[in-house]
């Protein structure tokens, strides 16, 4: 049932991957996609696989049995590939959202290596500002869960920038998206290095928050990176405990994806100029580096509330950086 006026063809089916690796999917992507699609008069069936590939497949079955005009798939461990194939067999195009996978008709994403790149730059600049020579600096790497494909891209992007500046990892913890595990791992790295740590590349804000607590306890303030522009991340940036976070405005990414989806649902074939190596049309969205002075940008964009950021401990910093 391609095109036409059937109910199915007015539905956009969206599958988000999990709730563990990042709060963004439920907190940002879902409302943004939902708003954009429904505003255009389409029905949005958005579901989250909750980190389970079997559930991912089940959700796809269920969405397809109700009918979809287009699928927006945020991949989980490759589960999207079979879903896209099934969809294609029914004449339904699919858009790879945020994470690439084979067989998608379109790909919309932040460039995840670029996200890592921003984090890397953050560390390099931070060291420079602290007057530490990058080549001799002792930098600990606290990466994300290696089972997550994105974690590898963040890592590769960050390492490319940092090694170009001459940084070699002094210690690399086993990757995880679990704050408590990251905290313990970093504390042990710190002990092993005898406290000689000049900067910590951390893949996201959750891990960064625990690393910062350990640094606080030991009376250290050094460059630390992160991403997601979460409440804690922005607060840490304001407090000067985290050098930067990477803001990936879901609204922008969602807008790009829903733009494609709406065109497809309207029976048009969207034209996209950029292509991936394998020829997949690619819409890139730019991640934004956030430092203390630009936290206000996130608030202005509506992705953080000043009232939540400016708790007692952060109030002074909020005033200083004009976060209201």
């Amino acid at each position, binding site marked *: *049932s391609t095109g036409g006026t059937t109910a*199915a063809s007015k539905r956009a089916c969206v599958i*988000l991957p999990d*709730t563990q690796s990042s709060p963004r*999917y*439920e907190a940002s992507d*879902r409302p943004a996609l939902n708003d954009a699609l429904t505003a255009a008069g389409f029905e949005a*069936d*958005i*579901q*989250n696989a*909750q*980190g*389970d*590939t*079997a*559930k*991912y*497949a*089940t*959700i796809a*079955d*269920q*969405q*397809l*049995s*109700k*009918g979809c005009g287009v699928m927006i798939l945020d991949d989980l*461990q*490759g*589960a999207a*590939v*079979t879903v896209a*194939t099934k969809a294609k*067999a*029914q*004449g339904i195009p699919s858009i790879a959202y945020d994470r690439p996978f*084979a067989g998608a008709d379109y790909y919309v994403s932040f460039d995840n290596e670029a996200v890592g790149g921003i984090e890397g730059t953050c560390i390099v600049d931070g060291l420079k500002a602290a007057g530490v020579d990058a080549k001799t600096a002792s930098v600990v790497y606290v990466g994300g869960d*290696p*089972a*997550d*494909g*994105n*974690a*590898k891209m963040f890592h590769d992007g960050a390492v490319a920038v940092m090694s170009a500046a001459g940084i070699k990892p002094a210690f690399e913890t086993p*990757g995880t998206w679990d704050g408590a595990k990251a905290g313990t791992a970093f504390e042990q790295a710190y002990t092993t290095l005898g406290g000689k740590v000049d900067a910590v590349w951390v893949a996201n804000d959750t891990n960064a928050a625990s690393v910062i607590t350990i640094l606080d306890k030991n009376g250290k303030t050094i460059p630390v990176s992160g991403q997601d522009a979460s409440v804690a991340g922005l607060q840490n940036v304001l407090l000067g405990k985290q050098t930067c976070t990477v803001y990936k405005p879901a609204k922008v990414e969602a807008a790009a994806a829903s733009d494609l989806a709406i065109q497809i649902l309207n029976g048009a074939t969207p034209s996209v100029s950029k292509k991936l190596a394998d020829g997949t049309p690619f819409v890139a969205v730019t991640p934004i580096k956030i430092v203390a002075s630009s936290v206000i940008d996130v608030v202005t964009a509506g992705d953080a509330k000043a009232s939540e950021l400016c708790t007692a401990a952060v109030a002074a910093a909020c005033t200083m950086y004009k976060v209201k």
Partner: protein
Amino acid sequence: MSNTSLATGHEGTLRDQATAYFQRIRSGEMGALPAVSALILLAILFSALSPFFLTKLNFANLFVQSAELAVLACALVFVLLLGEIDLAAGVTAGVGMALFVVLNQKMGIDPLLSVIAALAFGSLTGWIIGFFVAKIRVPSFVVTLGFFLGFQGLQLIMLGDGGIYRVDIPAIQAIMNSNMPEWAGWGMLAIMVVGSFLIALWDRSRRTRTGLATRPISMLFIRLAFMAVLGGIAVAILNENRSVSIKAIAGVPIVIPIVLVIVFIGTFVLDRTLFGRYLYAVGGNPEAGRRAGIDVAKIRIAAFMICSTLAVVSGLLHASRIGSVESTAGRTIVLNGVAAAVVGGVSLFGGRGRMMNAIVGALVISIIDNGLGLIGLPAGINFLVTGGVLVGAATIDALSRKRSGGSILRT
């Protein structure tokens, strides 16, 4: 006063048998019945909530979606019967599949050989776990938690960071994604009905030869008719075109006979072999089993081997459905597998449970995702509702067991 001497329950007319059956039900020998009622209630609930629930397509979907969990739950029954647990069953399946793709995809080994290697790996894993549990007497919760962690590492090492491998072998893809021709569905049903008939005749002949009473033969016919009608309806529905797009989809999904064969063999082993008998005995009272001369350690090890091997089979179904093997495969499914078995009526304390319990329980757990998938709730609410429905289903189950079960106290 009638001094009934040593009946066996095989005596009496059809009417007596029916009365006895309902009395047994009332007195708490419910088996999978409470879980079946939970299943029916959930089905009614979801039909009310979504017009798509009662479609032919969704009917087929439910079976395919639950197959992986059903096989895993069947696997777990073997260790649960002993009062043990295998937290590693899911990741064992995951490593089994990782091994499969490494052998087949990376090293170019024949798919069939690779599958056999994966199954062999499952058996070996079960043997090792069983060895720790049975010989060294480490609690299975701890051993299998260790394997649960360790195997996550193995998966990462075998498939690489963020590693995902496509499984492109048509035979494997077909299991969960293709259907049998129409005639094969009917053939399958015929084999089941005729097979049941022959087995029942064989049992009867053994009894009559010994001079023991047998149940009225009409009972057997009623049972077979019941099976034929229910099965016939299911096959007929599945044989119609259920596609919502141009490409026709019809026929009994290939996975259904596979699961049925597993259930049949499993039930046969549990009910009719020495091993099965000893499994129940050791699960009920290990010391009594030991004193009766049963090699308790051997039974335990064998149970873990069957569990891990069947877990790899469920991994195969996973790979077939997802179309790929990922480095996190199997981490979350095992708790659902245990829950399926328990909701279906298998005791966590050993000694009570059958294959059918696992199957019905798996359908209960799977129908939750199936139904909620048609409704499409945000993750937070979805989690909340899933948890709530699980507790609700278990409550129906517990309440129906309890009403009558009050009397089944340990004397």
